[in-house]
């Protein structure tokens, strides 16, 4: 394990400047309700505007509509979007992981079909991994696909599918070879692409979030036909592909920036004198100091992971360490803010800071669960530290 410090090059700094100017222009502070990192709103026109700049699917090949950029370039765009609270929800998953998976494991026909619309910001993806009986133990998924002429017949249920109602397709992990006694659970799984809104036998139903919001869905399949051309990569190799997919979603700025817009807004309101009872007294200043320093160090770690990816390495221990630490830090930030302001919170508050903090409190517990819990990440990282296979 080695994280090597790195600085941005002149070109990378120019990209950062360009992204900042774009945001200042499109979403001047005060003109929009910032989101909490990757949980930000879905806004198709905004996704399209970003895509016009080449900032969606930017690491994908030009041939398929991407920009052939590096992981570090994507890091720069993404961190600015997230810290601004920009509405990146619609293209988020497709940009972060699905596009990469289709590019890496898919056929040319699939690349041609899916990558250009992803890069235009016109195709939103969800993730179909979890099931009612399979959460952390993901290899135990039991949604099954049986062989049929030219494809597969799928039955089963996916759950917690974020934004399936607003996205277009999802990539789904299911079992194509039945489990027999003694067989390895990690074999016989496949990844398939399924249209969420135009598929016979697919039923979508909301699972209201604890605050009543519609975020989660249940997606159930009754004899859903999936043609062979929608199977990504090799049937039966889904576990390995899925593990690769998870590596894309770990260790990036989305794992430590969620409460940033809230902290920034606190500083704004204090400095404008809008925070009753909270001036920049010692305790507040010290808290800003602590958070700023931690963000600085955390960002350097996370950025170094992107550099490693660009150097052709697969920094899987490094990225699980960053994700586990980053999401715990997010929760720590929220707790410290709550202790600091010591006020009743409401989503209807006139103060943007208080609305954001209320939202942080309500959604925060999910940060250390989504995409694999911190307990599971610790097991993965600990095995890596001891040089054991994951």
């Amino acid at each position, binding site marked *: *394990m080695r*994280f*090597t*410090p790195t*600085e*941005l090059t002149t070109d990378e700094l120019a990209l*950062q400047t360009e992204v*900042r100017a774009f945001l200042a222009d499109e979403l001047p*502070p005060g003109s929009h309700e910032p989101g909490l990192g990757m949980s930000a709103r879905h806004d198709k026109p905004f996704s399209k505007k970003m895509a016009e700049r080449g900032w969606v699917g930017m690491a994908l090949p030009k041939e398929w509509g991407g920009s052939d950029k590096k992981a570090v370039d994507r890091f720069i765009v993404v*961190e*600015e979007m997230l*810290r601004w609270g920009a509405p990146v929800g619609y293209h988020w998953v497709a940009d972060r992981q699905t596009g990469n998976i289709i590019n890496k494991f898919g056929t040319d026909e699939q690349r041609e079909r899916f990558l250009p619309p992803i890069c235009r910001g016109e195709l939103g993806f969800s993730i179909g991994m979890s099931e009612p009986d399979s959460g952390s133990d993901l290899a135990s998924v039991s949604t099954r696909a049986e062989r049929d002429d030219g494809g597969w017949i799928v039955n089963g249920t996916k759950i917690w599918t974020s934004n399936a109602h607003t996205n277009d397709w999802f990539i789904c992990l299911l079992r194509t070879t039945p489990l027999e006694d003694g067989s390895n659970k990690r074999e016989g799984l496949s990844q398939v692409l399924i249209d969420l809104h135009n598929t016979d036998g697919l039923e979508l139903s909301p699972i209201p979030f604890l605050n009543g919001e519609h975020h989660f869905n249940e997606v159930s399949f009754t004899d859903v036909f999936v043609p062979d051309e929608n199977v990504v990569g090799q049937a039966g190799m889904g576990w390995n592909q899925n593990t690769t997919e998870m590596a894309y979603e770990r260790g990036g700025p989305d794992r430590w920036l969620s409460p*940033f817009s809230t*902290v*920034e*807004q606190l*500083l*704004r309101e204090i*400095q404008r004198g809008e925070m009753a009872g909270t001036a*920049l007294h*010692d305790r*507040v*200043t*010290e*808290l*800003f*100091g*602590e958070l*700023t*320093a*931690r*963000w*600085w*160090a*955390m*960002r*350097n*770690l996370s950025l*170094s992971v992107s550099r490693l990816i660009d150097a052709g390495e697969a920094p899987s221990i*490094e990225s699980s*360490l960053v994700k*586990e*630490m980053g999401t715990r830090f997010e929760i720590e930030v929220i707790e410290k803010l709550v202790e600091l302001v010591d006020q009743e919170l409401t989503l209807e508050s006139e103060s943007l800071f208080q609305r954001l903090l209320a939202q942080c409190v309500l959604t925060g517990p999910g940060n250390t669960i989504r995409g694999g819990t911190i*307990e599971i990440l*610790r*097991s993965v*990282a*600990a095995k890596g*530290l*001891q040089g054991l296979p994951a």
Partner: protein
Amino acid sequence: MTVDALITDTASRLLAEVCTHSTIQQAEAQGEAPEIWQAFAETGFPWISLPEEAGGSGGTLLDALEVLRLVGYYAAPIPAAETGVLAGWLLASAGLELPGGIATVAPGSTSDTIQISDSGHVSGTAHMVPWGRSAERLVLLGEGVVVSVPATAAIISQASSLAGEPRDTMTFHGVQADVASAPDGVDAEALRFRGALSRVALMAGAIDKMSRLTVSYTNEREQFGRPVSRFQAVQQHLVWASQDAALTRMAAESAGRQANRGDARFEIASAKLVANQAATRATKACHQAHGAMGMTQEYELHHSSRRLWTWRSEYGGVREWSSWVGQAAAAQGADGLYPLITAGSAAV
């Protein structure tokens, strides 16, 4: 700008050889480690980053910090930071002579009473001076001047850090010193930051060592018929400690790279703050994972943990640096907060 790999290799090999559990233990009992210092000094390591014209070993600040990281890693019981990047830096910047032996600095405690007369005579007391008893020269900052006073002329009251390393009280009664004016940028504030940077480098090494030691100990120690590292509760300690090791090393190296380029106050302040907090968490996790063994003198964990408890409070604790960084953040304002995080001192 990177560190010469040869420096890392040579320093690691040398320190691994001379800093064994028993030699470190012995240094603590004796209050100094002349043999270790001798071996270290022969290579010129203490004077890296000081110009050769001034009697230094040449090389960059980054090289010197890499050596300090290794000094921290191997818990070398020697005044490596003091002699070179602190006292040596003050002397060389003011054009004063570098001694052939140990030089140390007065870190500047609020209870210090040092006075320098117009004729260059030093009187008064300096506290918590690292290795005061072994030093040839003590270097002090006066009003616009750097002062080098013969340390052997001091009346010394011995004290030690939590790690059992010398932190002496030195009292002078009108001792003639060498005095030279301090160039711009060499003042108490600069010394504070440089001291903090030296501690961060040492801490990066020590947390790294401690977290590796904990991985290997918990792999060997068996309970309930298997290595304790198989228990998830123990794995949590391993993961958290190695994160703190990575975080501190990243902070130290990022701050070092910036310091090598120019103003690095934001990076150093942030790095010391991050390191101080990481040291607290990581020592807790590593001790817990070791059980009673970690509480003994016979086992080596304390060489790292006690040094970390020392260094986290030297040259500024959590309050001092969080308040400094917080003021920098407030000065940037809300719109400038993220640019400060990405650009650091360049944004200030």
